């Protein structure tokens, strides 16, 4: 039952009906029931992992709150067990491939074993670490009701692709008593529809070209097009799913945090990552960056670098050390392989280079008297950022680093291919262009602080209905889903 399936839509309608019939005080139990049902449909028996991990975090937090002298031990133990599930299930093969060559010397060996990952483990583990760390830092009181905690961790709209939520923020709307709000549902519908358009019309359509082109080691300038289309695919897929998740939450009057804020309008990589997968960025900042920054080792390092004569260099090292871990973890979180670590460190390297060379850039700007406040300069910054991101996306997609390098090299090898050789027709490209124009316009309006959904809601009934019908039927007709239609299999002549 994926977010874009008919089954999911039926599930949501059914759940909504039960939710709003139930007494307000206990409505969250319907959400819990829905969460467990949804999770079970996706992961079957593997549901045990999230149920068990929640229990550990729940008990850990209660103990942590009661204890005075063993707080650190309880905290580390809870984090280790929670993280242990993720490491064993997701990273064991990667770790084996790193450790085995070393321990083979003493005739030891960690066996390779491929586990089926419970859905959302990468997301809910981060939420669990965030929860227990916040309790450890005494940010708020632990939840006394295990089932409420389970409702939060398994909350179905966010369990598959996030956003990574904070208990103290989401619990407010998750457990508060709410009435049915028709207008809210209408607004939610637009957001869900927008998510479907991004995912089914744009991402999955772009994906056809990308897969057909890049999976077959093709050469030529279309590689650049497929890199751009892949970046579009990833963004539309991810942000589309988040829009659906947020819209579905709104149907239940529950607010999920924003995870994307028009990242392709960013003028620097730092800004890009503040706008892209925001909840992950904030998590890394709060639980990796701050933890490392305030660690003893970093304090000592800071003391040491203060002695360096070049102030700029000393400041650089102070930032570079904790940020290294942030980007290392960022890369590793995306996948259990060296490629993903390099993907994370790619951004780290570019950012650090930017910090290191900032005095030089400032000098160039002042020597050539470049006005950085003009539209053209801002546009240059946006294009520069997007180029870095597009290259990063290829790194993310490539099967190996050498595959990434060879793909870049293949750009310069001439090819006779036509645009329509890779699964998309000219009409498909037209649909892509039109829908990208629509999403760009909506993004631009949002950048200018125009609430598009509110604007639509302010319109007359007839206009609103036309918009709703356009959303529904553009998804149904132009969406990429189902078995596909092959005229040859349908035109039946032989029997």
């Amino acid at each position, binding site marked *: 039952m994926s977010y874009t*399936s*008919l*089954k999911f839509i*039926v599930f949501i309608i059914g759940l909504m009906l039960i939710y709003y019939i139930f007494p307000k005080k206990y409505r969250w139990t319907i959400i819990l029931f829905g969460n467990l049902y949804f999770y079970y449909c996706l992961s079957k028996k593997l549901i045990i992992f999230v149920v068990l991990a929640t229990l550990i975090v729940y008990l850990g937090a209660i103990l942590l709150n009661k204890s005075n002298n063993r707080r650190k031990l309880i905290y580390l133990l809870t984090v280790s067990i929670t993280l242990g599930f993720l490491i064993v299930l997701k990273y064991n093969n990667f770790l084996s491939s790193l450790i085995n060559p070393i321990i083979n010397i003493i005739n030891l060996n960690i066996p390779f074993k491929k586990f089926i990952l419970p859905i959302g483990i990468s997301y809910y583990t981060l939420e669990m670490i965030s929860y227990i760390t916040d309790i450890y830092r005494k940010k708020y009181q632990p939840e006394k009701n295990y089932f409420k905690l389970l409702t939060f961790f398994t909350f179905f709209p966010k369990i598959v692709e996030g956003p990574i939520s904070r208990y103290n923020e989401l619990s407010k709307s998750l457990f508060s008593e709410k009435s049915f709000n*028709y207008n809210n549902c209408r607004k939610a519908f637009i957001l869900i529809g927008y998510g479907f358009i991004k995912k089914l019309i744009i991402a999955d359509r772009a994906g056809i070209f990308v897969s057909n082109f890049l999976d077959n080691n093709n050469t030529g300038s279309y590689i650049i097009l497929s890199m751009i289309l892949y970046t579009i695919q990833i963004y539309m897929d991810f942000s589309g799913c988040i829009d659906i998740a947020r819209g579905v939450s709104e149907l239940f009057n529950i607010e999920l945090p924003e995870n994307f804020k028009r990242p392709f309008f960013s003028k620097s990589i730092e800004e890009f990552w503040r706008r892209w997968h925001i909840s992950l960025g904030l998590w890394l900042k709060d639980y990796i960056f701050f933890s490392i920054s305030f660690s003893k080792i970093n304090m000592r390092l800071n003391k040491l670098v203060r002695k360096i004569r070049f102030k700029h260099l000393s400041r650089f090292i102070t930032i570079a050390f904790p940020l290294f871990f942030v980007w290392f973890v960022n890369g590793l979180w995306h996948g259990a392989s060296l490629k993903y670590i390099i993907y994370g460190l790619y951004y780290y390297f570019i950012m650090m280079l930017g910090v290191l060379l900032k005095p030089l850039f400032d000098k160039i700007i002042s020597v050539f008297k470049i006005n950085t406040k003009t539209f053209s300069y801002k546009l240059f910054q946006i294009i520069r950022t997007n180029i870095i991101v597009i290259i990063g996306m290829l790194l993310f997609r490539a099967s190996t680093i050498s595959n990434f390098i060879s793909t870049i090299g293949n750009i310069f090898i001439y090819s006779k291919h036509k645009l329509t050789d890779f699964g998309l*027709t000219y*009409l*498909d490209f037209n649909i892509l262009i039109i829908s990208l124009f629509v999403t760009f316009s909506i993004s631009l309006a949002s950048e200018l602080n125009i609430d598009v959904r509110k604007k639509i809601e302010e319109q007359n*009934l007839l206009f609103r*209905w036309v918009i*709703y*019908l356009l959303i*529904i*039927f553009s998804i*149904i*007709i*132009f*969406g990429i*889903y*189902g*078995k*596909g*239609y*092959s*005229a040859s*299999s*349908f*035109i*039946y002549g*032989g*029997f």
Partner: protein
Amino acid sequence: MKNFIRLFIFLLITLFIAIKLGNILIPKGWTDDFQGQIYSPKGFSKIPENQLDILFIGDSSIYKGVSPMQIYEKTGITSYNYNAPSARVYMSYYFLQNALLKQQPKVVFVDTVTMFYARKEDEPMRRQSFDYMDLSKVKIDMINDDVFDNSFFDKISYILPIFRYHDRWQEINYDSIKESKKDYQSITKGFLLSTSIEPNKNGYNYLNGNEEYNEIKKYNLEYLYKIINLCKEKNIELVLLGLPDIKVWNQKSSDTIKKIADKEGVIFLDINDKKKYPINWNTDTEDGGGHMNIIGATRITNYIIDYLQSNYRLPDHRQDKNYSNWDKDLKIYQLKYEKAIKRIKKNADAINIKIELPL
């Protein structure tokens, strides 16, 4: 309350548009001068209630093998060839059920070659059978029948075909919109006038030949019994029909069906017997022995007419005013038939074959 009424109206409009767009998007590519295929399931619903004396159900063997209008022309008995390409016997069961919603035939002929399919049909084949069936309890039962392995999405898309055929938007033009409004009343009553000709060069040895298709799958047998029971329940005479076929049929097939027929007390009319019919494998088949062309179909229909006249006393509707629609269709059918004969003669000339027209 106002909001819910609005929501209800909005959903009705959405449903209406979805149905209309589905009608435009659903494929309609299997139509020609000589009909068949799409006309069979769609045209069936155009037959006025309780007008059929006989029903033929099955797959391509029967819709290229038996001409209901020829039967009407010669006897005044009304019949319909309700079928779909590649239809398995479990699909025939639903055709029969659907047919019985509006018709009360006295005799039902079931094409038994469908019993011997070794695997289930491909999804497009199933679509061609059921996409054109009007929504009814029978269609709902079919959608939910486990034999078809329909997913939730499939089930919805049988009711709203827009979900299945949305991909066809690139092929849609003004003609598609015009065709969606077309009346698919079947002049040939489900029969397809095949004008191809491909002789069978191996001669007549089929009852001893192919051993590949002689096993009946359990699920096929189950549905044959369902058909038998349904006919018994509705007091309909069931005739299991073995149509001439060199490619699939063999002695074992014949024996197996005979055994079932004897056990269940139903009739088995095996036309795969050299002594019984005058098929000329040089001229009567469109594909070297798998299907009849119009010449072969005319001969087989003549055989069935003889069988009907000798075994049943069915009414002659030719002078009946209530059946004037059949007389009207017959005139058009005769023109189509003549046209088809001209075309098959041309095809025969092209490969130097002399055809002898049956009477």
